């Protein structure tokens, strides 16, 4: 069973997207970034919303409503930011991913690593 402050694979993608997007992290941009990180897999908009709500309930991210804009039909955005627990969870995941990367590199070599780029 996972710890409440740990993040699953898809949650790591969403947390990374929020980290990269900084002030501009809201539904549409987060979905685009997650799709970019998860390529060639397709990611549905709904999967991103469910994960954002779950991360918020876990206390890893928090959200605020922005002012309404014309390009959104006069509706506001829900902007997300990483909380301290979210940053810690993402750092923990990144360290684990680095270990996995180093171990696989030793076995499969640099040619495989170049193909991954």
């Amino acid at each position, binding site marked *: 069973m996972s710890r409440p402050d740990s993040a699953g694979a898809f949650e790591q993608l969403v947390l990374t997207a929020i980290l990269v997007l900084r002030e501009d992290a809201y539904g549409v941009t987060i979905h685009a970034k997650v799709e970019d990180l998860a390529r060639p897999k397709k990611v549905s*908009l*709904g999967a991103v*919303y469910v994960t954002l709500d*779950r991360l918020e309930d876990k206390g890893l991210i928090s959200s605020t*409503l922005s002012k*309404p804009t014309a*390009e959104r*039909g006069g509706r506001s*955005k829900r902007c997300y930011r990483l909380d301290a627990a979210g940053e810690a969870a993402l750092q923990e995941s990144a360290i684990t991913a680095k270990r996995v990367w180093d171990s696989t590199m030793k076995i499969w070599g640099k040619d495989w690593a170049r193909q991954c780029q």
Partner: protein
Amino acid sequence: MPMNPPRFLAATVKCLLPPPARETILGDLHERYTSPSAYAADAASAIAAAVLSQLRRSVSFSGVVLEASVVYAAFVASALIQGGPLILAPIARVTAIVMAALLWRAVYGSPLSASKKDPLVAWWKRSRMNGSVAGRRLCKVLQLLSRVYLPIYFGCGATWCWQLMFRNSRAFPAIMTSLNGVFIASLAVALLRLASDRARGDRPRHAA
């Protein structure tokens, strides 16, 4: 020129989205709009996600099972009080439809609040019982009752109409049994929710 989603499609999506997520998801869908078919696909996925999230946030699995048991027991008790035939299968069917109505209310209903605009809260503020613990509890039970009574009544009514149209109407508990059942079930569910809110330290969890 920026493209806008068709009004009918946007209005339908607005109706289907739970209120807390409505504003932001409609904005996101509007911003991503390219064609009606892409909008519909995005909206279907977003609505399903928003409903699931709202259900997860407002009700728990054990709470739903407990409430279903209470509603079932209330209808059985009302059948016994009425002295009519105790047919358990139709009561189970009514319970299932009533639970669906309560879950619908949990997703789409307004959350329980201590707003002064709420007529029950306004009545309690004016009443002599204001400030007393018993008065506060009574007000909360009435507030909870007002939120569960209509979905339970609607669930019973829907089952009754369905039975009248498609099945033998005698299979459904007698009308007085169902009316008594609505009241007993509403009171029981309201008290159950009050107890579970108290156990969590008076933080209301149920949106219904």
